[in-house]
């Protein structure tokens, strides 16, 4: 047997799942798609007393367009996101980013809520949530609360979710028609975690940029919103010089760590290069 022993529960409702989490008082882990948690269990790096498996709660899997946003049940599979016409039309950055999330067999099981709650700083979905200024809904013993992207990610693999809370929904605002978007990523092999990735959205009005959004993956403990680079574009427009200045500023805004995959300097360099590429491609997509 590879994983250590645990009590296994497969509740059929969120209320039942919450009761189980409360009963174990922080010693239980929520099992969503399992594409990160199961490897941790196989290596015995994680030894929870119990697993609360959300896979038998059908009400947690949906994609709905409502009130200017698209809402995703936390257990919506990445594969469902990838092939959703609603996502493609309304949140195209997410559709593009999904193709970078590991491989199709992983996306069969992996979920949007699981990826965000796991909060791997190299993962694509946290960067997209940050760039789009999305939010998540958490449900716990005291009821529901909404957490904005900027308040969600605390540090490596750590969110502001309480141990007795479950992330039940992800909400992303609809991207305005005609807006440009792109996700640029550098990884050693397709499907690996990003060494650096940049998620970007630009809304243009002629040469003017009315809104720019830039967020990173792989440049530190949490996704970084590149606000000062966005401001350059919103102030100076979308000409070559502004794009160049924004990319340069982007690389100054991150303080990445070095690890076995890349040095801090290389990640900073990539941040600038990928920001430039993402903006150029986003402008190609944008109309107006």
């Amino acid at each position, binding site marked *: *047997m590879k994983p250590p*022993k645990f009590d296994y529960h*497969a509740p059929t409702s969120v209320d039942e799942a919450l009761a189980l989490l409360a009963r174990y008082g922080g010693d239980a882990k929520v099992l969503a798609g399992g594409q990160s948690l199961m490897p941790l269990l*196989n290596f015995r790096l994680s030894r929870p007393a119990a697993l609360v498996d959300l896979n038998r709660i059908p009400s947690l899997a949906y994609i709905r367009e409502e009130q200017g946003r698209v809402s995703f049940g936390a257990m919506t599979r990445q594969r469902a996101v990838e092939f959703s016409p609603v996502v493609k039309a309304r949140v195209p950055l997410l559709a593009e980013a999904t193709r970078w999330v590991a491989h199709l067999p*992983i996306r*069969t099981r992996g979920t949007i809520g699981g990826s965000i709650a796991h909060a791997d700083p190299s993962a694509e979905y946290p960067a997209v949530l940050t760039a789009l200024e999305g939010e998540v809904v958490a449900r716990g013993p005291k009821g529901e609360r909404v957490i904005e992207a900027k308040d969600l990610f605390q540090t490596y693999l750590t969110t502001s979710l309480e141990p007795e809370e479950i992330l039940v929904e992800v909400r992303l605002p609809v991207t305005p028609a005609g807006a440009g978007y792109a996700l640029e990523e550098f990884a050693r092999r397709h499907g690996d975690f990003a060494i650096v990735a940049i998620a970007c959205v630009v809304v243009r009005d002629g040469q003017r940029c009315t809104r720019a959004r830039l967020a990173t993956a792989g440049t530190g403990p949490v996704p970084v919103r590149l606000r000062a680079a966005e401001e350059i574009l919103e102030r100076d427009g979308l000409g070559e010089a502004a794009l160049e200045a924004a990319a340069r500023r982007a690389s100054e805004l991150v303080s990445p760590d070095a690890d076995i995959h890349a040095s801090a300097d290389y990640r900073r360099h990539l941040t600038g290069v990928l920001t430039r590429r993402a903006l150029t491609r986003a402008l190609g997509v944008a109309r107006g």
Partner: protein
Amino acid sequence: MADLVTVRLKVNGVEREGRCEPRKLLVDFLREDLGLTGTHVGCEHGICGACTILLDGQAARSCIMLAVQADGAELMTVEGLAQDGKLHPLQEAFREHHGLQCGFCTPGMLMTSLDLLRTNPTPTDEEIREGISAVLCRCTGYQGIVNAVRAAARTPGGSR
């Protein structure tokens, strides 16, 4: 010993049942409890893809899923490809185009390629490469596998 759970599922069209601990991985359940050793155990953490099976028609890693989670599901493993002693067109193509040497990754390559062709029956070479990048092969250099998948895509029934 922890409490055992009963797992009932359909594999390659046949109803099967077994009892195991909840922590048992699906790949180990297939091999040890059901005797279906065609699905291989490689890295055991979702990287190499050797253990890929079809879960309710979609490719998934059986080493990072619990057997108990597959209760009620319909699975297809590499044993389900050949029909009446006749190889599946994908298997024929792998043989014809040197899509394997040692054979360790082959069950995963075949099931991943089948999902790829069902999702996208006319893939470009780039899409084939992206698709099979989900499985690691240390023998072929991948070129033979790309050729095999491309050939299977052009064969009637290649994605059945």
